[in-house]
């Protein structure tokens, strides 16, 4: 049971392994997981290791547990609406709820999310708030007065409380069964939300009375999932933008280098001095420190680059908060001639000679679309770029232009010959950094 979980979550670029399952099991034993919503939250706590993981996690979770695949660029709402799971759920929901069928799609998705993300905490809240509920909610009762006789609110709440005691083993077993059934495509109307015991509403209790448990719990979650950009999957192959800049940052961190310096080791000095009967000789120990030397050359001329300049700056600014002194940013327009500019408006500059005087251990990131009129890529320009690449062995070019257009642009082809070129995407950056790390600055 669940043994395929790590593998399928790993496919989404998440860290999941046997430890994930062990922690999950322990959480179950401690009674932390009683609903599908609990399972979602617990797994998120275990698997998600950064905001950039939340998107892929949502994607993996919906795919694995709910069979709702989310394609790149698709919103969660859209994915839900198109899924088989939702269609089945909807039929039954409307059936059981005896609702008017003119519920908007938005309402339905919201109700669906309420159920999927309902946690046992929400249920407890409702149960403990029961008295308040009874007192405060005459309207709701009036509205559905026909139904209240056979299904009083109290009983429904009891049911919810009972539900929270449902054993998780049971829950998962059923889920697994349904998974298999769905795989073989003759599920024959038995589906998991609702009758499967996963729905906190049991057989159409709550909905009949118009109680929305999600008022504070599930509903909040639903809104969050739909409205929050963090919940949308981060596509590692998407071009750098505000949403995936964190993922890119994670990839680019690989450029930090470690080295060691010698330092007087006071404790050892004293200890050995005492052993020598008071003769103190300095003892040295080596201390590691991190080094990051980067020069970023950004093409900020022309409209083609405008959308990316901001994201690129943001990416490197984030790095700069930690490595204030070793990061230099210069600007150029289309290609590099005899100078690069210090400021964005390109009013102050340094000459190429000066740029070449930087220590050769600097890493160079060219960032530009490398699209220009062929004559702009003059012999002088080529020579200078070659000089940079020759001096700084760890140079790469990050290009925001979609990969498929590269072969059609002459200047990209030409530039690619001089500087190793990668797409300006989190994955591209990752590859660029890996490429850099294989090169030595010597020679």
């Amino acid at each position, binding site marked *: 049971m669940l043994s395929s979980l790590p593998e399928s979550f790993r496919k989404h670029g998440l860290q999941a392994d046997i430890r994930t399952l062990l922690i999950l099991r322990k959480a179950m034993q*401690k009674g932390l997981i009683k609903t599908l919503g609990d399972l979602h939250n617990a797994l998120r706590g275990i698997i998600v290791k950064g905001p950039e993981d939340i998107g892929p996690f949502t994607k993996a979770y919906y795919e694995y547990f709910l069979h709702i695949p989310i394609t790149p660029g698709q919103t969660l709402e859209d994915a839900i609406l198109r899924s088989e799971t939702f269609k089945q759920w909807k039929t039954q929901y409307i059936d059981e709820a005896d609702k008017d069928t003119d519920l908007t799609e938005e309402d339905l998705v919201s109700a669906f999310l309420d159920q999927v993300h309902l946690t046992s905490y929400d249920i407890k809240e409702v149960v403990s708030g029961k008295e308040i509920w009874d007192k405060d909610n005459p309207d709701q009762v009036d509205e559905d007065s026909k139904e209240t006789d056979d299904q009083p609110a109290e009983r429904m709440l009891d049911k919810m409380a009972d539900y929270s005691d449902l054993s998780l083993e049971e829950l998962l077993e059923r889920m697994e069964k349904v998974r298999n059934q769905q795989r073989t495509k003759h599920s024959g109307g038995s589906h998991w939300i609702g009758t499967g015991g996963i729905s906190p509403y049991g057989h159409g209790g709550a909905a009949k009375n118009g109680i929305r448990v999600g008022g504070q719990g599930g509903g909040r979650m639903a809104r969050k999932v739909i409205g929050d950009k963090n919940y949308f999957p981060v596509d590692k192959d998407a071009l750098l933008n505000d949403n995936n800049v964190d993922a890119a940052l994670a990839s680019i961190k690989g450029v930090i280098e470690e080295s060691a310096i010698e330092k007087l080791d006071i404790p050892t000095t004293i200890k050995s001095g005492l052993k020598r009967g008071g003769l103190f000789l300095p003892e040295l120990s080596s201390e590691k*420190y991190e080094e990051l030397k980067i020069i970023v050359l950004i093409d900020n001329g022309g409209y083609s680059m405008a959308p990316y300049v901001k994201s690129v700056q943001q990416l490197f600014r984030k790095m700069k908060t930690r490595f204030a002194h070793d990061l230099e940013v210069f600007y150029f327009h289309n290609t590099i001639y005899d100078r690069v500019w210090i400021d964005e408006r390109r009013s102050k500059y340094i000459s190429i000679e000066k740029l070449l005087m930087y220590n050769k251990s600097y890493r160079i990131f060219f960032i530009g679309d490398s699209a220009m009129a062929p004559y702009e890529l003059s012999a002088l320009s080529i020579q200078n770029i070659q000089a940079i690449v020759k001096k700084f062995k760890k140079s790469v070019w990050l290009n925001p232009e979609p990969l498929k257009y590269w072969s059609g642009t002459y200047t990209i082809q030409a530039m690619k010959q001089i500087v190793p070129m990668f797409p300006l995407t989190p994955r591209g950056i990752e590859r660029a950094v890996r490429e850099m790390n294989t090169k030595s600055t010597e020679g």
Partner: protein
Amino acid sequence: MAETKHWKGSEKYLCDPDLAQAFHMARSLGMPLLIEGEPGTGKTELPIHYAKDRGLDLEVYPVGSKSNVEQFVARFDHVKYLRDSQIEILNAQREEKGLESKLSTGDRNPESLADYVVKGPAAISYSKPNSVLLIDEIDKAPREFPNDLLYALSHRKFIMPESGEIVEVSEEDMPAIVITSNREQELPTAFKGRCIYHYIHFPEKDVMGKIIEKHHPGLDEKVVKVGLDVFYHLRRLGLERAPTTREILNWLKYMSDIAPKDAIEKIEGLEGIGALIKTQADMERVNRMIGAGDNFRPSHN
């Protein structure tokens, strides 16, 4: 038995239900809770208010660029040990010469190594069952620190340097460990793997309203509303350093001494905005984008 009842925040502290669940889960599993998020989302506040609300002992370890696991767990004070050993020798010499007066080593005895062990927050909280341990801003630490910590945290047992004394805690009595990070550097995967992770998103307007209510309960509703409009508008400008919870609380505190009507006027006139904007570049930007056009009347647009 450890305190593992579900905690949902206190009078002063509004705990997001998601965060409360993550915290509960971490404590039930005896694992550290790693909280990340923008500055000003109340990462550090959680353990502080939790400890206060439940009357538990709180140990805080503020992480810095020089942090190491010795400071965190325990270190041996070599310098003091040297001093005291020298004093012993000196005293012996003085005695030989017939001098009565002795130099003091405090209550420490160089024979007993445990006297020279300086316990850090980790060792202290592990020796107090059911306490709360806050490791603040772990992203400021040198890279090896989280990995060293990992070993310390997963073994529930510390061996004190030199003295060999063992500080041990059972799984039931594990302190509630909360680790915060501003994400200035990526933490090692192995480290994160041993924590329950929670990312705090910046509070939405309605939640922020509740937070303000908790801190300044007497504040006029309309003042809060107008203040929030301005605040979230500023946050959307994409400033270098967007204003955070702390700043709006300070700003509104300043406004709370003023009659509501005047306060609203002052807020709309962006008075005392220095409380929200922290850099010169941002200030210029705000002036350029809002001040100059004089079109900022959030309640009317």
